[in-house]
């Protein structure tokens, strides 16, 4: 056997063998626009939603919650319309997950009012006694760090100007701190006094959760 006495040739050959399947199933699909199609109905995340998504990632929510509804009858019954590729065009990284210790979240946007999420994140057990979800009340005690919000959205290529980002943040702050905010009561209950007029990490996380699956409804309706 010639190559078993030539380590460098052996390594090159191994690399070639490894790269064949890689090229066909990974590299070529990367160059095909059809792998990740786009739709005008699917909008990028706002700066606040993106901050919420980053908190979702930081806390490793993806370890228990998937974000892809499969085209199976019982799954569509449980969660809603199955996931479409266009929905994920702005997802860097993707957050499809691999294990459902908790339910899928790809259709959670608009399913419950914000007040439900404030109560549930604060203490899942207060709503579902036997739930094994960790409580996240402490997120409401953290002021949202918006120092890098513009840098984040521009890195992701969402096309917002710096003033767009500030406007989005101010607007969302105005919404949740407004006296007429429908979820005012539950928000005030979990948010400490000094942060009542500020944006917290929990506000951003809820903004993100409410965005999930929202745009695709418009896309489906237009079909």
């Amino acid at each position: 056997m010639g190559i078993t006495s030539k380590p460098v040739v052996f390594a090159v050959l191994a690399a070639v063998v490894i790269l064949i399947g890689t090229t066909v199933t990974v590299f070529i699909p990367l160059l095909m626009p059809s792998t990740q199609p786009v739709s005008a109905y699917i909008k990028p995340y706002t700066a606040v939603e993106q901050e919420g998504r980053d908190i979702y990632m930081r806390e490793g929510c993806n370890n228990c919650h998937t974000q892809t509804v499969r085209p199976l009858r019982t799954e569509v019954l449980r969660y809603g319309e199955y996931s479409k590729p266009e929905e994920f065009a702005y997802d860097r990284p993707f957050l499809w997950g691999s294990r459902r210790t908790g339910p899928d979240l790809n259709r959670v946007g608009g399913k419950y009012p914000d007040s439900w999420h404030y109560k549930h994140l604060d203490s899942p057990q207060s709503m579902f006694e036997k739930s094994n979800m960790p409580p996240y009340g402490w997120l409401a005690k953290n002021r949202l760090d918006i120092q890098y919000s513009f840098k984040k959205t521009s890195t992701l290529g969402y096309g917002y100007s710096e003033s767009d980002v500030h406007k989005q943040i101010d607007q969302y702050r105005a919404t949740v701190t407004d006296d007429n905010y429908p979820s005012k009561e539950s928000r005030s209950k979990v948010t400490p006094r000094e942060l009542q007029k500020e944006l917290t990490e929990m506000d951003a996380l809820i903004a993100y959760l409410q965005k999930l699956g929202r745009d695709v409804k418009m896309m489906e309706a237009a079909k």
Partner: protein
Amino acid sequence: MSETRSENYNFTIVRGFAFSALFWLVIGLIVGLWIAFEMFNPALNLTPWLGFGRLRVVHTNGLGLGFGLAAIFATSYYILQRLTRIPILFPRLAQAHLYFFNTVIALGALSLFAGMNTTKEYAELEWPLDIGVVVLWVMFAINVFGTLIKRKEKQMYISLWYIISMTVAIAILYIVNNLAIPVTLFKSYSVYAGANDANVEWWYAHNIVGFIFTVPILAMFYYFLPKSTGLPIYSHRLSIISFWALNFAYLWTGAHHLMLTPLPEWIQTVAIAFSIFLIAPSWGSVVNGYYTLQGNWDQMRTNYLVKFFIAGITFYGLQTLQGPLQGLRTLNAFFHYTDWVVGHVHMGTMGWVTMVISASFYYMIPRITNTELYSVKLANTHFWLILVGQFTWTITMWIAGIQQGAMWKATNPDGSLMYNFLDSVTSLYPYYKLRFAAGVIYFIGILVFVWNLGMTVRKQPRQAEA
């Protein structure tokens, strides 16, 4: 394989990595027990950094990169020197590799506790630590190829092929999947979006399991089984065919982790086909292992190491049948996202991987410290504890997975869903408690293992024999 005087070899590095592996093994298992408890009692989510979402990642990275890689480095440095019949070419580089490795893993664990998490499974470390991992891989590769080029033994034995393909494959996988644009020192975004990111990630995740938990473990198996038994590998030809077929087919199969997702269907279907094909090269090694013992099965009784290798390769055989079957679309629709898959992974890691690493360490450590194993009896205790622990663990999770899959699919006569999601979670708590208990048994087995090796190196080296 005639051997040069073993005092010429650098065994300090082997010992350093072996005990690093044991350290990260114990840490990773403690975290594993902690999150196993959280699954049925959320009270242990005491602080943000003890929350399940953060800890699960510490568990997988601590054991995959901490324990797994350290054990691979230890055995690779040993096998490399033995099979080339020269000492490690750059001993000081190897020493730096050891210190740097432990620094990166420790910082990695701390950063994951702190929530610096890219969320790409088994690639969760943020970009500065990714660069650290690449650097430590290059440090390793320089010694692998340097030593191989300067070797005294003309032919490279099977184990060296596996070490070469691992060195090459991990470099490609790790770099491609971790490409990201930094925002700050602690935060970056993947360069790939959506379905592409998913495809790259599962190509990586599937193959990082292949090239950390299969390929180098086979290198150990092909080296230490003949060494421990005094029997040559049954078929050289079979090992050549298995080697190339495994390396070729593995890379096509990542998308079986993305069945019925928005990833283009053809990629999923190609992955299913190659997953089925993979049974052949996997069982090539299984058959080679079994036939090596042909006519010498009494060693299962007389040689404590053989039990570990044969149980290990048996779990590998079961694993490589179960994996492709789970990849079939219909079965996948039922099992995916349930605890069945968690059981599958742990048969591989707690069965195959740990069994073979245990036996390799038991063979290697007394030889490099020039002494006898502290206690064969304890090694047998260790074997039975981890066997019973692992079996109870995985079977419990398979049953839990079947139950949860069935509950998700159950419908009433009118077509509505029979169970809400929470029912499907709370009904698993008895299984989660049993799984925790099985984990404790397994952990005790590992403590016996660590104690046994610790006491072995504390013994005085025996006098040089005449």
